[in-house]
């Protein structure tokens, strides 16, 4: 006797493989909405339709029902298209349209255009507390599928495949604790790597070194030197668009969350050199109705020298804020780990709108049991309007060493490939030093993933899917990033990366930046349910 399939809450399987989220029980409803829209659109001529598309923000297109609903509810017959009106002035007059504005892209401090700069006149995006699509229940306990692997071959790499196979054979030997074999293989890799060119050689060299450290138990020292790491990250920021994308998309979400608020407080878990904040300050300075009063709390690790980096960064930002007339307050917190923080420390004020921001920080917490849960608990106690998170889109935290090795090999190969293509676009050429330092930056991550274990292994990247369930358990639900954020991120890429192979992809309301077809980082935004 097979148990009955649930007939509600079940996501339709046929649509799921095609990338759509449609509940089986809702199909008739979706069909009805499609008909409704078809009818309404019939009265438009093509010009009006594409104009409408340009003016509407779309969210989470996988959820067909809510996508249709957003168009139905936002759908007012537009009066005859008036070609004489200035679209940039129209926004305050028109009832249901949002217009992106083009601010100055030329300066270093890129202000963020987009609907967030104008007060919302459209009803907020449709209910985003969709339940997590449940897996279709089967009567037989499903075996968890192995984690996917996404290698990307750049044509000349076919002869690099042998090198990849040798690396994986070596990793397998390490997993089986057959260190004699591993040793022989790692020496072989050295020879093979030399005959490769470009990215493949560099990646192979870093992975071989990391394997050697693991085999000979020569664990890397100084992995926690934050000043050095910050310096490396600055070069990485200059070389390629990943960090710029991260800051840009997170800022976009924060700006939207701050719309109409007069007192705001950003808590940055990843303060470092504070590179994310000038652009946000600039955008807030330019919003109509004027900027809010802005408070920034920056968290950073203790410094190894005499200087107080956190305070210096804060001071520079204060100067900038003053120059653009934004009321600014700053506080720096030194903490060895985010898990050492408590909500009370932040002294959240009455009437203050809070945004918590974390760029490539949360995965480190996975090295200690209970840490991520503690931090998410603290975040929820802060009652933030929004939590913005950017993380590497990869599972480098699997329990089996070989899985971690394989996944990270493919991931960093693609990352290094993308670095090779950097320096072509953008306003300034990327210096050799920037590139080399970026490689060192990534090389340290590789070493950590492969050679370290326990609390030392901090590069415990996990995929968006995995983070979703963590955030869900902590009481958060997704705030969807829309088509306007997507479009602006694409424009940013075209500006900074010459668009050379970089792609933005929308995935269940979140945005991912990848190189060609391989997503590499994911930006997501969250709020309390």
């Amino acid at each position, binding site marked *: 006797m097979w148990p009955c399939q649930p007939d509600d809450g079940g996501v339709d399987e046929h649509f799921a493989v095609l*990338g759509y989220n449609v509940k089986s029980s809702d199909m008739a409803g979706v069909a009805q909405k499609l008909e409704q829209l078809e009818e309404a659109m019939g009265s438009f001529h093509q010009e009006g339709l594409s104009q409408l598309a340009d003016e509407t923000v779309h969210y989470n297109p996988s959820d067909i029902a809510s996508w249709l609903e957003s168009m139905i509810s936002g759908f007012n017959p537009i009066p005859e298209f008036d070609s004489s009106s200035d679209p940039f002035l129209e926004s305050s007059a028109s009832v249901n349209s949002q217009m992106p504005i083009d601010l100055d892209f030329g300066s270093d401090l890129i202000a963020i255009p987009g609907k967030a700069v104008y007060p919302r006149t459209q009803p907020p995006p449709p209910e985003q507390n969709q339940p997590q699509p449940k897996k279709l229940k089967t009567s037989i306990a499903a075996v968890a599928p192995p984690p996917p692997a996404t290698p990307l*071959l750049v044509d000349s790499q076919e002869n690099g495949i042998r090198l990849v196979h040798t690396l994986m054979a070596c990793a397998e030997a390490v997993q089986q604790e057959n260190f004699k074999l591993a040793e022989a293989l790692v020496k072989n890799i050295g020879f093979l790597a030399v005959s490769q060119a470009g990215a493949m050689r560099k990646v192979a060299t870093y992975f071989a070194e990391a394997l050697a450290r693991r085999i000979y138990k020569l664990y890397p020292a100084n992995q926690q030197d934050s000043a050095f790491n910050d310096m490396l990250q600055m070069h990485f920021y200059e070389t390629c668009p990943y960090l710029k994308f991260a800051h840009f998309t997170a800022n976009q979400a924060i700006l939207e969350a701050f719309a109409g608020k007069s007192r705001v407080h950003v808590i940055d878990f990843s303060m470092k050199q504070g590179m994310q904040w000038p652009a946000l300050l600039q955008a807030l300075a330019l919003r109509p109705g004027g900027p809010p009063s802005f408070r920034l709390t920056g968290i950073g690790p203790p410094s190894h020298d005499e200087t107080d980096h956190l305070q210096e960064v804060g001071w520079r930002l204060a100067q900038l804020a003053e120059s653009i007339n934004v009321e600014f307050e700053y506080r720096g917190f030194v903490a060895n780990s985010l898990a050492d923080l408590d909500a009370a420390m932040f002294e959240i004020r009455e009437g203050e709108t809070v945004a918590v921001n974390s760029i490539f920080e949360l995965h480190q917490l996975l090295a200690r049991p209970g840490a991520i849960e503690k931090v998410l608990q603290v975040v929820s106690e802060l009652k933030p309007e929004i939590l913005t998170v950017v993380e590497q889109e990869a599972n480098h935290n699997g329990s089996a060493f070989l899985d971690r090795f*394989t996944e990270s090999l493919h991931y960093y190969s693609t990352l290094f490939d993308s670095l090779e293509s950097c320096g072509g676009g953008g306003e300034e050429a990327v210096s050799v030093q920037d590139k080399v330092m970026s490689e060192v930056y990534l090389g340290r991550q590789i070493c950590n993933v492969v050679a370290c274990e326990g609390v030392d292994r901090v590069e415990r990247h996990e995929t968006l899917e995995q983070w979703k369930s963590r955030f869900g358990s902590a009481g958060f639900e997704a705030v969807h990033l829309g088509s306007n954020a997507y479009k602006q991120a694409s424009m940013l890429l075209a500006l900074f990366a010459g668009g050379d192979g970089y792609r933005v992809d929308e995935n269940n309301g979140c945005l991912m930046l990848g190189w060609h077809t391989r997503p590499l980082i994911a930006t997501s935004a969250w709020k309390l349910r």
Partner: protein
Amino acid sequence: MLFLQRVVPLHTWILISTFKLSYNLLRRPDGTFNRDLNEYLDRNVTANAVPVDGMYSFDTVDRLTGLANRIYLPARDNEPQLGIVEVEKPLSTSEVVPVIVFFHGGSFVHSSASSAIYDTFCRRLVKTCKAAVVSVNYRRSPEHRYPCAYDDGLTALKWVNSRAWLRSGKENDLKVHIYLAGDSSGGNIAHHVALRAADEGVEVLGNILLHPLFGGEERTESEKRLDGKYFVRIQERDWYWRAYLPEGEDRDHPACNVFGPRSLSLEGLSFPKSLVVVAGLDLLQDWQIGYVEGLKKYGHDVKLLYLEKATIGFYFLPNNEHFESLMDEIKSFIQS
């Protein structure tokens, strides 16, 4: 609409209507296209080198176009499930493993090899035909017009033909056994790539055209009869041709009207045998049937599979008899 829903299964109706709706928002009357919104709305999936359902996939970047083509290979029984890409050994040294070079549809404008609908379809092809599949990303219009798609198709074909790891057959007689396939604009591309392949001496064993995109200045009976009835309007078809063909050209251009007033002769050409699948509710069927007749006239081997009650896009969902017929037909076409 309700009548249409009775003819077309509900899933297919919802899927194709959703595409139709999105595409309506993207085409602008001045011929430009909302590319960003198109990419945003498209549902993509990544390749997966870990075998699933007996096959694995990986992407390879073509330096010429900067686009990533997707390769699907049958998983080998004796290899560990490790996500290893096998590019050192041939597909088989005991039997023939066909390689299908697939061109996705989208009227030359939409979709890509990463689109979920096409990734799924290619996987079904691998399974049914026990073949390897190479899904080609060709440069799309209106940003890249004729002949970019054909150039990219030919480049991909030659690349496939020269891969040692795509060869199969008996040990002393290894070669790449190539079939070209495509739906909608992909079918059109398959035809034109086969033409060029014939010219350049690259052997193509067969062409599979799934409601291919052909047309002309004339308005055929089927176009008039079915205009606006089953998801497609002639007006839209015109827009896509204007976006693909060189500026100032009309639909009698030989890329579009293959056997029309400006057509090339296929006499004596080493053109592969063809399987042409026509959906009985597709307004372009007169052009597709005309194509079949044109091939016959030049003495080429062609089979027509006419699916009376099928609409465009019927093959995206497997839950109907048209899909079954299609897969059976493709399988025997390749095996014969």
